[in-house]
């Protein structure tokens, strides 16, 4: 079956521009996660959505970062006024349950801010 898909796979943007990254989770998965993986760093938790509950935004690094999940399915991570330190791979994952479900990761979007 289809796994988690992310688009675009690569994004190059100029400093100060806004970017939108998209995640299509596995059908039927109620939990969705965003992570950031920087060079030499581990995966950093950004945000978690579970069903209709309020998202856990505790990992978002600044107010330039925001995310939405529409209809309990597709999610968009938006970074406003991008900075060079935002350059990283942004990974999305989904699971059947936030508490016990295995997280299935997408291939990521590599963001480069010039």
């Amino acid at each position, binding site marked *: 079956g289809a796994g988690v898909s992310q688009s675009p796979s690569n994004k190059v943007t100029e400093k100060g521009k806004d970017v939108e990254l998209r995640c299509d989770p596995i059908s039927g998965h109620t939990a969705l*996660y965003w992570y950031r993986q920087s060079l030499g760093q581990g995966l950093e*938790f950004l945000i978690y959505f579970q069903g209709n509950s309020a998202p*856990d935004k505790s990992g978002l690094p600044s107010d330039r970062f925001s995310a939405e999940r529409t209809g309990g399915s597709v999610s968009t991570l938006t970074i406003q006024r991008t900075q060079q330190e935002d350059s990283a791979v942004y*990974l999305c994952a989904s699971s059947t349950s936030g508490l016990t479900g295995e997280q299935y*990761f997408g291939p*990521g979007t590599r963001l480069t801010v010039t």
Partner: protein
Amino acid sequence: TQLLEQSPQFLSIQEGENLTVYCNSSSVFSSLQWYRQEPGEGPVLLVTVVTGGEVKKLKRLTFQFGDARKDSSLHITAAQPGDTGLYLCAGGGWGGSNYKLTFGKGTLLTVNP
């Protein structure tokens, strides 16, 4: 802030050798997961251990969760080139936050034929 330290950071060995990767923390975790990530792909879950002292074996891979739930190890026997990749450990939070994983920086393993 919970931190997970992995060692070694890089490991290059010959096919057929054994190796152990370590994951240590001063924090206690509800569970410990190990992932393998290949270039251009997302991490793939290998195992979850949830009980202190637990040992799980998957073919040539042996995973151990420390008694105090603060550390873990991954041992690979007779490594093969197909084992090459980035190995990540991740600790789960507690209670309603056990979905929140804290990841180590990873061990980049290269197995040479």
